[in-house]
């Protein structure tokens, strides 16, 4: 039987077919990032572009201008350091909250009968399709001191004075968990729904209690889904800009916001580039984990395809 694109078939065509998507990604993803790396070692100057060139050729002398000033400031200034710590902390707390809410949801969706399952899944996917910006905006009207939540609580007599949530870190947490919850539930659901129920039956037959069976069978089996979901929440949250900007206070420190300020308000492009590099540096381990996860998935799917 002939196979598509085996090594002996049209090797030249085969190689050519890889090129266009690869070229797009190299040109618009890889090269731009290398440029960010380059500019992070430049110095601020007046003019267009507002940074010094990396190398200049003058009087047959090649001068390399590698400026470390951005990085020196980034690694010594306490405000910057506080921002990294705060970003990572917020992303971690968000991931844990998404796991606490998302795991039981994904679990019960996966266990529901097929008809209800489709409907429940749709309920998770629908917010994912609708505008993040508009959904985060919805929280503004709820969390403000004269907003719906405070009005409701005061009408019920639970509080006397409005709670200050809007423009605090708490509001940012609510917004982040709200926005990223579907990203946790969907990969976990995909894992849980493939779970072989006979494993649980075996555990029960061997005398496990329901919690024990969950803790020692279901949870370990679903770990790949938990990891994928956690990474899909954690990584983008570290660099999130829109949510802290809309719900957070002036003292809500997040790297995405810091980079934005350096770039748009201070027009300090080398600094903004350096902040971006630090962000990627912080995310390199989780990103590599995600890539590994994805690559393994692609591989196992390829094997399945060949079987």
């Amino acid at each position, binding site marked *: *039987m002939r196979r*598509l*694109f085996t090594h002996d078939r*049209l090797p030249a*065509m085969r190689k050519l*077919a*890889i090129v*266009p*998507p690869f070229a797009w*990604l190299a040109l*618009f*993803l890889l090269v*731009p*990032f290398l440029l960010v790396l380059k*500019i992070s070692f430049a110095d601020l100057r007046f003019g267009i*572009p507002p940074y010094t060139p990396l190398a200049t050729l003058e009087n047959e002398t090649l001068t390399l201008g590698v400026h470390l000033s951005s990085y020196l400031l980034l690694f010594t200034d306490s405000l910057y350091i506080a921002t990294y710590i705060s970003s990572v902390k917020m992303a971690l707390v968000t991931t844990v909250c998404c796991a606490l*809410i998302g795991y*039981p*949801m994904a679990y*019960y969706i996966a266990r529901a009968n097929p008809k209800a399952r*489709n409907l429940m899944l*749709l*309920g998770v996917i*629908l*917010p994912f*399709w609708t*505008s*993040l*910006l*508009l*959904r985060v*905006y*919805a929280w*503004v*009207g*709820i969390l*403000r001191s*004269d907003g719906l939540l405070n009005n409701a609580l005061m009408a019920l007599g639970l509080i006397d004075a409005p709670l200050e949530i809007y423009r605090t870190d708490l509001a940012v947490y609510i917004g982040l968990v*709200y926005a990223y*919850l579907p990203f946790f539930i969907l990969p976990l659901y995909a894992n849980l729904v493939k779970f072989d129920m006979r494993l*649980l039956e075996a555990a*029960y037959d061997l005398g496990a209690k329901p919690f024990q069976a969950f803790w020692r069978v279901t949870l370990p089996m679903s770990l790949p889904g938990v990891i994928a979901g956690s990474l*899909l929440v954690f*990584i983008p949250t570290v*660099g999130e*800009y*829109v949510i802290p900007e*809309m719900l957070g206070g002036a003292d809500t420190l997040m790297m*995405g916001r810091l980079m934005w300020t350096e*770039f748009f308000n201070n027009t300090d492009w080398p600094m903004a*580039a350096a902040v*971006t590099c630090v*962000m*990627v540096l912080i*995310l390199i381990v989780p990103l590599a984990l995600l*890539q590994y996860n994805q*690559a393994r998935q*692609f591989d196992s*799917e390829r094997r*399945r395809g060949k079987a």
Partner: protein
Amino acid sequence: MAKPDRFLRAFVLTLGYGFLYVPIACLMLFSFNDSAMMTSWTGFSLRWYHELFSDQALLSAAGLSLQIAALTATAAVALGTWAAYVLVRMGRFRGSGLYVGMLCAPLAMPEVVLGISLLLMFVELGELIGWPAGNGMFTIWVGHVTLCIAYVAVVIQARIRDLDRSLEEAALDLGASPLKVFFVITLPLIAPALMASWLLAFTLSLDDVVIASFLSGPGYTTLPLEVFSRVRLGLKPEINALATLFILIVGLCVIVASKVQWRKEET
């Protein structure tokens, strides 16, 4: 099989779906409120819808966004499908690790990273060869396509993997060229997934604030940019009306698409 605890299940699901949907419901409800504040209900009114449709800035921004979204979705589906097909059907090749890496990076990578790096590249390119002359539709489109390829590739590769390969192999055995097999056999089989990923790319592009902030130029304000510049400082009731329409349209599309999908699964 042990029955999951009914009470716990009801509790978890009510709370979870409540969390996801109550904010949207509030937003929609108060788009019909007469008062400009979301504090109290003062009466039913359509005045914010009226204001929305006479707001020229919002309408022209919406027009631009719809154009960019359609162009983005089309290009992203073409490139993403291509990339997914290469990945699923070609096995390992030199550099396939880098390939998967680059393909999946935009899925999780903070959008600010993609935005700033593309902007810096366009600035450098402009310095070097004088192209692109300025930021605008083209630069935003490039950014959105790069973001959306990843999403499209994930959806399509899942579909291609589930295909029955014997159909393609039969066509090959009958002497069709691989290219013909792709267009005559594979493509029609994955058409629903193509449609779904086109819509996904369309909505992603229609919703993006961050990449467009970096890559847009004067005179090219997309809808999310216009919305964001209004709401970052507080409540704007005409945006409630816009959100309601947006969510209803998207919701309707997703529900119809899912119904079609389910019916197919049943037969």
